[in-house]
């Protein structure tokens, strides 16, 4: 094992270690706890980036990636091997994951009100009002664990180790979404953090079980789970494609691919398992950023890119059915979530649906075979979405301070209560604007434009016209709701006292915003198409694609540069922003004004606002029947009726036999000893009157006895 391989092994270790140390040792000291977490992620960042820049400096890195593994579990004659590997795809992840995690943890210091005294009114397990978070050290332990798990997943060289990281993240998402477990709302229909945590955990668990089936199937077919051993072995891949699966007409490779993709549907919140993600907004905002940008959902997309050769295998013969399904799921999700985002009023919910929508873009890109575009969008999205989430956290923080000042009881996350924050929170405003424009795809400057454009160009180049139209629509809506969000939040006059009294957050919160804003703009320049006029040449002939080319053993048919997709994405990006400005920006919403779009769309808006009633549908279609089956069928009929009935009749039979034996025992075996005991007791009872307990009675006995003896002696003497 050489030094750089050892470095790779060490990358996930510090955060995992710091989580343990914080929970076991330093949990009494807030300062020590966050210092521990920050140091750990800092070490990981340095190690990770040393690997990243080492790899970037290596020519043709894709052909000889870093890898190192050890025997882990002996199974018969072979051994299951655990190891780490760094190929170009991992390098991309190692570039942004530790950076985003470190910034989020730094941000959490300010977000959790470090430096203030503990507010006596704050309850453990509820968000703090104006004091420091009561469970401060625990928060950093969980964040560290989350970051460590994500890094473990990224450096894993096999599906099993990846799955370990995957599941630890599932646990962390549960712990962190439900971090404010004591929080209750006046409205009983509003999802509490507890419910959201359970929902997220169960939804992703459902997907993970299917994914585990896929992993097991893959292992059964190939005898290994190592990515490189499977995907870079053409014979094995051919065998996988040739082997029929349990479902007729589907090759084993595709069946496995579908099963594993189900894990991504859950983790990356694709339709129909996306409902957990908006509810996950119940967690503290740094957690939302962690889940939505740096870890969790990125992990899902990363995993699909990893197993992409499997999904796309055999695509030559009439196209891979898996890719078709992925394209449909991804593009549908992209549009579907974008429409919902238009009608949301919670500042974080809008971002949540935009995350789902953007993940849909990435999944679509994979479906049409453009894995490099997917990886590119994954990276840029991580930067601008982390920026947007941390920015929204800063907004909410400012609003809560304002509400604390004005003593209003309003929802600090509702955009209708905001307005005019630009002047009061300048750093947050400018960085949020950059992130928003990047999300909307503001042409030629922002990272989001380049990565989205790449996906659109791929769709056009490979003649996926329907996909292109759907994605353009989604991109238009994205720009529209982003503009709506910016206008409602920052522009115009404050609509509440709280907004008027909001103020800028601490430096620990604004510094990560500035750093992320830098990357939200510049991260796009590495992936500009090499034939793009002037810029393409200026920015080094698309270094991103060159670097990633060959990371996976998949033939990518490159396409030449065309103006059509660029024009289209400029058009939808600017068009959406313009439409948003016309509706919300030109004349800012006043106090109590109805949303203009709501008036225009009428019932459709209500449908969107209620997320197509999907939660209600799931409630009625799956949860209610499941409850019925468990309470009525299983509990009442099967358990209490059949099983208990059987057991009870058995018990009654035994009781009867027992009663019989009792009679034998009583009249046969025990009769003589019982009589003996009773006799002794009766004698005792009969003679106890002798003991009066009075000295004089006893003395009388003595005197009588003495007299009697005297008389007897006298008689004898005579």
């Amino acid at each position, binding site marked *: 094992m050489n030094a750089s391989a050892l470095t790779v092994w060490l990358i996930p270790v510090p955060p995992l270690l710091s989580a343990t140390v914080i929970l076991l040792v330093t949990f009494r000291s807030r300062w020590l706890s966050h210092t521990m977490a920050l140091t750990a992620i800092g070490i990981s960042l340095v190690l990770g980036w040393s690997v990243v820049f080492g790899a970037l400096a290596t020519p043709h890195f894709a052909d000889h990636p870093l890898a190192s593994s050890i025997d882990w579990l002996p199974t018969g004659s072979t051994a299951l091997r655990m190891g780490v590997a760094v190929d170009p795809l991992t390098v991309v992840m190692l570039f942004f994951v530790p950076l985003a995690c470190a910034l989020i943890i730094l941000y959490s210091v300010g977000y959790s009100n470090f430096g203030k005294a503990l507010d006596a009114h704050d309850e453990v397990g509820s968000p703090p009002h104006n004091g420091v978070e009561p469970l401060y050290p625990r928060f950093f332990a969980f964040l560290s664990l989350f970051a460590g798990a994500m890094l473990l997943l990224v450096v894993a060289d096999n599906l099993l180790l990846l799955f370990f990281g995957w599941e630890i993240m599932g646990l962390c998402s549960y712990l962190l979404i439900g971090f404010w477990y004591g929080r209750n709302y006046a409205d009983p229909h509003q999802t509490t953090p507890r419910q959201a945590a359970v929902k997220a955990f169960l939804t992703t668990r459902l997907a993970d079980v299917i994914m585990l089936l896929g992993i097991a199937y893959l292992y059964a077919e190939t005898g290994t789970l190592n990515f490189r051993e499977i995907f870079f072995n053409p014979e094995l891949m051919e065998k996988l494609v040739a082997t029929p699966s349990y479902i007729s007409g589907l090759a084993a490779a595709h069946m496995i691919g579908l099963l594993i993709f189900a894990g991504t549907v859950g983790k990356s919140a694709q339709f129909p398992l996306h409902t957990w993600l908006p509810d996950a907004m119940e967690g503290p905002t740094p957690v939302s950023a962690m889940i939505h940008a740096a870890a969790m959902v990125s992990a899902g997309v990363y995993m699909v890119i990893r197993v992409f050769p499997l999904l796309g295998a055999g695509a030559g013969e009439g196209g891979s059915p898996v890719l078709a399904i992925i394209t449909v799921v991804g593009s549908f999700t992209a549009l579907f979530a974008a429409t919902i985002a238009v009608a949301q009023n919670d500042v974080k919910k809008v971002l949540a649906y935009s995350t789902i929508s953007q993940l849909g873009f990435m999944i679509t890109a994979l479906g049409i075979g453009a894995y490099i575009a997917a990886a590119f969008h994954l990276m840029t999205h991580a930067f601008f979405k982390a920026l947007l989430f941390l920015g929204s956290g800063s907004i909410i923080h400012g609003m809560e301070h304002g509400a604390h000042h004005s003593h209003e009881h309003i929802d600090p996350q509702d955009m209708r209560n905001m307005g005019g924050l630009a002047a009061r929170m300048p750093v947050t405003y400018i960085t949020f604007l950059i992130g928003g424009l990047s999300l909307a795809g503001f042409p030629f400057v922002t990272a989001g434009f380049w990565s989205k454009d790449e996906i659109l160009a791929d769709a056009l180049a490979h003649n996926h016209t329907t996909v292109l139209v759907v994605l353009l629509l989604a991109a238009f809506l994205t720009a529209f709701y982003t503009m709506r969000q910016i206008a409602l939040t920052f522009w115009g006059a404050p609509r509440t006292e709280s907004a008027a009294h909001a103020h800028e957050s601490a430096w620990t919160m604004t510094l990560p915003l500035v750093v992320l804003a830098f990357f939200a703009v510049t991260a796009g320049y590495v992936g500009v198409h090499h034939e793009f006029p002037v810029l393409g040449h200026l920015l080094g002939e698309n270094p991103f694609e060159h670097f990633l080319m060959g990371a996976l053993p998949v033939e990518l048919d490159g396409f030449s540069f065309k103006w059509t997709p660029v024009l289209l994405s400029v058009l939808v990006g600017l068009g959406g922003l313009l439409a948003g400005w016309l509706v919300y920006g030109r004349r800012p919403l006043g106090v109590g004004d109805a949303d203009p779009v709501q008036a225009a769309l009428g019932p459709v808006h209500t449908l969107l606002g209620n997320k197509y009633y999907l939660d209600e549908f799931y409630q009625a279609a799956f949860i209610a029947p499941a409850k019925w089956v468990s309470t009525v069928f299983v509990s009442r009929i099967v358990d209490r009726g059949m099983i208990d009935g059987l057991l009870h009749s058995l018990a009654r039979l035994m009781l009867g036999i027992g009663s019989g034996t009792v009679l034998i025992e009583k009249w046969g075996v025990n009769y003589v000893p019982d009589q003996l005991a009773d006799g002794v007791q009766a004698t005792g009872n009969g003679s*106890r009157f002798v*003991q*009066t*307990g*009075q*000295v*004089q009675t006893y*003395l*009388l006995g003595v*005197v009588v006895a003495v007299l009697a003896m005297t008389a007897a002696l006298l008689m004898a003497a005579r």
Partner: protein
Amino acid sequence: MVPLSWYLVLAALLFSLGIYGVLARANAIGILMALELMLNGVILNIVAFWRYRAPTQVSGQMFAIIVFVVAAAEAAVGLALIISIYRRRGTVVAEDVSLLKW
């Protein structure tokens, strides 16, 4: 000279009076006093026998003195016990003190 038997009769009377007192009195102090009477009867017996049968030996007087001492000690202990019982239970009636009864 008064014959020995008169002394013995007197001693027996004293003793019998004592026994009656011990058995019949309700008051614990009365019982204690009756006990003293019984002891006095015994001492009278001892002294009478010494004087009439072995006046030259000292042992008779010694016995009488030992019984005196025992009687004095017994009276002291007995009275102390009775006071203690009185403090605890507010009574000196022997019948009421029947903790050992079944």
